[in-house]
Every structure is written in structure tokens, then in C-alpha cells.
């Protein structure tokens, strides 16, 4: 009986309340209250039927809240005539919750917050800590999100792609506070994959597992960045990699390729290489070509240029990069979505033997870096090359 179990029950409990006629916002509040009570009481006195317990308590909380609201008395009378809480209905509405929480009318940050709370069962405090904002701010963000989707009908199928985008946003946040958001995103994606048969859901799950398997080796104990070539491959989580590969292969076999499957395929090729020298860059490049076809984003083209550099040599990589710069009107200014452009150029120039240009570009890239670990890493690269040139 632990918090993970309680949290995994959250979406189905919430869905049951909504199915019984509670409006989404009130149901969500009631479920949160029940969760808090469960976390407090269960360690000492665990119920036999965890889900039944949560449904009963959440329903009672909902009725209490409704009862205290005089304006809703009529509705309460109607609601109380509903049959008493029994076994959970066979229909699983959890999927609808995912759609609702990722609804296109929500901003990305609201969709993320609402998903973590309503589907993930996290408390407002936990979400606030994870995103390093005050709890009051997060509470407002969540209640606004609930208001925004309050009149969205619960019975219509939503868009899986929006759900996947939200889950991927959660995954990429890493962690602060007591919740590991990457692990949480994997848990929620797993839950989603069990409910919806969609190759891209499987693709995203595989991608997350494959990335996550290498996470421990991406940073040194002091928090500094370790590039792929220097990572200790013996510490990669082989069980996660194996699971990711199996899921990916089953998805690819269905021949409905999407961007997450293609990205997972690239991650699998990295995870599969016993040494960095044995990386199959030619195949990785082929997958990047698929990705460019599927989603022609500057970020994908940038990563493709790296693969070209590895498969065909730094000159070819620089040519691919130049093409990218020419074709994109937005030059990499600060705050633009292409902060790694300069870093890639620096790396390719270094491999091409032009240390002076590489050092200058590394310093410039450090200036544009989106996070501390990357900035420090790039600064060290610039310093290393400048020392080499002096020595």
C-alpha cells in the first residue's frame, strides 16, 4: 500500500465520479481530498479494496462540498438519488481524462499541470515544487485550467497527439522537489498505452524508456554534463533498453510511422551500440531523413546535421548545417528555439581541425545555452581548445 498505488488509481476514480454526474472541477477537488486522506490513513489502516475505498471517500467529499453549496441543492437531490457506490463500472473513462487534460484550449503549462494533478494524482504542492513556482501560483494555474475545460464534453474522443505532446513536455522537465517528472511521465504513458492501441503512444513510451535508461550516465556526480561519447555504457539500464526496443519493434511492425517512433529508433541505435565507435551512424542518418519527412522542424534538421557529420565526415556535416542556416530565416538569436545550433557548428569545426573557430563558437554557444549544465560544459570546451592552442 503506497503512494504509487494510490496515484495509479487516481484517473479511474476521477472518471467514475464524472460518469456519475459530478462536474469535472468539483470531482477533481473531491478526489484530491480523498487522496490526501488515503496517504495519511492507509499506512496504518490499509483498505482491502483500494479503488472502492477511494471512490466511496471521494464521492462523499463531493457530496459534502455540493451539500454546502445552497445554490446547488436541487442538483444534489438529483445526485443523491443515484445508486449507492458499487463496483467500478466496466467502462474505463480514464482515456477521456487524458484527452480532457491535454485539451487544445489549454496552454502547454496548464495542460501539464492539470494532467499531473487529475491523471497523475500529484498534489498541487508537489507540482509546484517540481516546476519551482509558489504553491499559490500553481493552485491558480490548475483552477484556471479546470475552468477552461469545464464545459468540454467528456464523452467525445480527443486527440492522442495533444496528449502525447503534454506527456513529452512532462518527461523533458527532469526533476526537482520530491517527484521525478521523467519517471512520472513514463508511468502515465504506460497507463495510456495500456488503454489505447496507437503506434505513436507505443513510440513515445519506447522513446522515454530508451532515454531514461541512459539518464544516470548523462551527468557526473557534481551535476556536470557527460557527452554521449564519454558515458559509461556499462551503467545504462539494460532492462529499460530491452523493454523500449521490444515496444518499438512491435510499433514499427504496424507500419504507421510517426515522429516518436522515428525518434525512438534513433535512441535505440544509440542504446544498442556497445561502444561509441560502433554506433551505426548511417542508419541513424536514414532515420533522421524519415524524421525530416515527418516533421520538418529546424531542430530535427540540426540533429540531422550532426548525424551527417558522423556518417560522412565533418565537412559534410558543416555543409548540412550551412544549408539549414540558409533556409531558416530566423538566425539563432537568444531566446530562439535553436540554441544548440552554434554548439553543433563548434563541434564540427573542431573535428575538422579548425580549433580557433571551434573555440570561438563554443564560447558563443555557452552564451546561448538554455541550462546551467550545458553552459558549463560548453565553456569548458572553449577553455580546453584555447589552452590547446596556446600550449
Amino acid at each position, binding site marked *: 500500500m503506497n503512494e504509487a498505488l494510490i496515484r495509479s488509481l487516481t484517473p479511474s476514480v476521477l472518471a467514475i465520479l464524472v460518469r456519475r454526474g459530478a462536474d469535472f472541477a468539483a470531482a477533481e477537488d473531491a478526489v484530491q481530498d480523498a487522496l490526501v486522506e488515503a496517504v495519511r490513513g492507509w499506512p496504518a489502516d490499509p483498505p482491502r479494496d483500494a479503488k472502492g475505498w477511494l471512490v466511496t471517500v471521494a464521492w462523499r467529499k463531493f457530496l459534502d462540498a455540493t451539500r454546502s453549496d445552497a445554490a446547488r441543492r436541487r442538483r444534489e437531490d438529483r445526485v443523491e438519488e443515484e445508486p449507492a457506490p458499487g463496483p467500478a463500472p466496466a467502462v474505463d473513462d480514464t482515456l477521456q481524462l487524458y484527452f480532457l487534460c491535454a485539451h487544445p484550449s489549454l496552454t502547454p503549462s496548464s495542460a501539464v499541470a492539470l494532467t499531473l494533478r487529475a491523471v497523475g494524482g500529484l498534489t498541487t504542492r508537489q507540482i509546484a515544487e517540481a516546476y519551482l513556482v509558489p504553491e499559490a501560483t500553481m493552485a491558480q494555474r490548475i483552477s*484556471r485550467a479546470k475552468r477552461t475545460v469545464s464545459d468540454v464534453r467528456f464523452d467525445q474522443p480527443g486527440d492522442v497527439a495533444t496528449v502525447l505532446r503534454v506527456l513529452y513536455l512532462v518527461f523533458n*522537465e527532469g*526533476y526537482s522537489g520530491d517527484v521525478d517528472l521523467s519517471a512520472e511521465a513514463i508511468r502515465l504513458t504506460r497507463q495510456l498505452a495500456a488503454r489505447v492501441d496507437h503506434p505513436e503512444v507505443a513510440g513515445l513510451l519506447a522513446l522515454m524508456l530508451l532515454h531514461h535508461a541512459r539518464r544516470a550516465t548523462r551527468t557526473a556526480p557534481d551535476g556536470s*554534463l557527460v*557527452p*554521449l561519447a564519454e558515458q559509461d555504457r556499462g551503467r545504462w539500464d539494460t532492462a529499460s533498453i530491452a523493454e523500449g526496443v521490444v515496444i518499438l519493434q512491435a510499433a514499427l511492425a504496424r507500419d504507421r510511422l510517426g515522429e516518436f517512433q522515428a525518434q525512438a529508433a534513433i535512441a535505440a541505435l544509440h542504446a544498442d551500440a556497445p561502444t561509441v565507435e560502433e554506433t551505426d551512424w548511417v542508419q541513424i542518418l536514414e532515420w533522421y531523413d524519415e524524421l525530416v519527412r515527418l516533421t520538418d522542424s529546424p531542430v530535427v534538421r540540426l540533429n540531422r546535421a550532426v548525424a551527417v557529420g558522423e556518417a560522412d565526415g565533418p565537412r559534410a556535416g558543416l555543409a548540412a548545417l550551412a544549408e539549414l542556416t540558409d533556409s531558416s530565416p530566423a538566425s539563432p538569436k537568444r531566446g530562439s528555439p535553436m540554441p*544548440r545550433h552554434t554548439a553543433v557548428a563548434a563541434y564540427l569545426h573542431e573535428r575538422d581541425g579548425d580549433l580557433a573557430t571551434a573555440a570561438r563558437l563554443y564560447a558563443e554557444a555557452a552564451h546561448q545555452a538554455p*541550462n546551467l*549544465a550545458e553552459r558549463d560544459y560548453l565553456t569548458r570546451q572553449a577553455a580546453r581548445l584555447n589552452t590547446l592552442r596556446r600550449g
Partner: protein
Amino acid sequence: MAKYLLLKHYRGAPAAVNDVPMDQWAPEEVSAHMKYMNDFAARLEETGEFVGGQALAPEGTWVRYDGEGRPPVTDGPFAETKDLIAGWMVIDVDSYERAVELAGELSAAPGAGGKPIHEWLELRPFLAESPNTTDCPHQ
């Protein structure tokens, strides 16, 4: 979902359009200005975009290490040459465009004559603490 720091400078930024020192305003104008700032923060709290904010005293002191076993050296405040920060606010927004929009709104705080100050605010993105899950560019 990116955090930005909004910095209000006393000096160092270009002069505001409506550049009159605060002690030359009417008291009601000062009150109106303060109310605008508070309302702005309250509104951001409601939208779920407020992280924190604080006003700072104009004069600071420069402090420097002076060697083992010695008290730190203090100097300054060099008020004429060094730019000073009047206050800061941290916001957490979905896009750079939204951050610029909010900074613009804050810059419209009323000043002398009840007219917007049009002061310059500096907008600085926070560097994230934890790297995200993408590998560094050299993969």
C-alpha cells in the same frame, strides 16, 4: 514554461519617456503607481504566472575578499557610475512573446501626470537548473 526575470533599473537603462524622479510626482501619482504594480502582480498570480518579486533599496555596498583571516573589504556604493536595480519580478510563462508582453505592460505603470512612464525594463531568461533529457549536441 520558462522563467524570466524582469529588472527595473534606476540607472544603466536608457531614460524613460516620461522621466521624472518619483519625488517630483504628486502623492496620488505615487499611490497610483504602487497600486498598478501590486495589481499587476496580483493579476499574474491569478493567471498562474507569478513566481516572486521584491523592491530593493537603491544603495548597496561593494564587498570583496581581502585574504585569509581578514574581514572583507567594503567600498562603494559608486552610485554615479554603476547601474542600480530598483526591484525585480520573476514570472513563469509559456513563451518569450508572453514575457515581452508582460514586461511591456509593467513598463506602462503610471508616473508623473498620471501618464505611463514608458520605462525600460530588462528581461532576462533563467537558465534551467536541471538539464533536460536530450543528449548534448555531440551525440
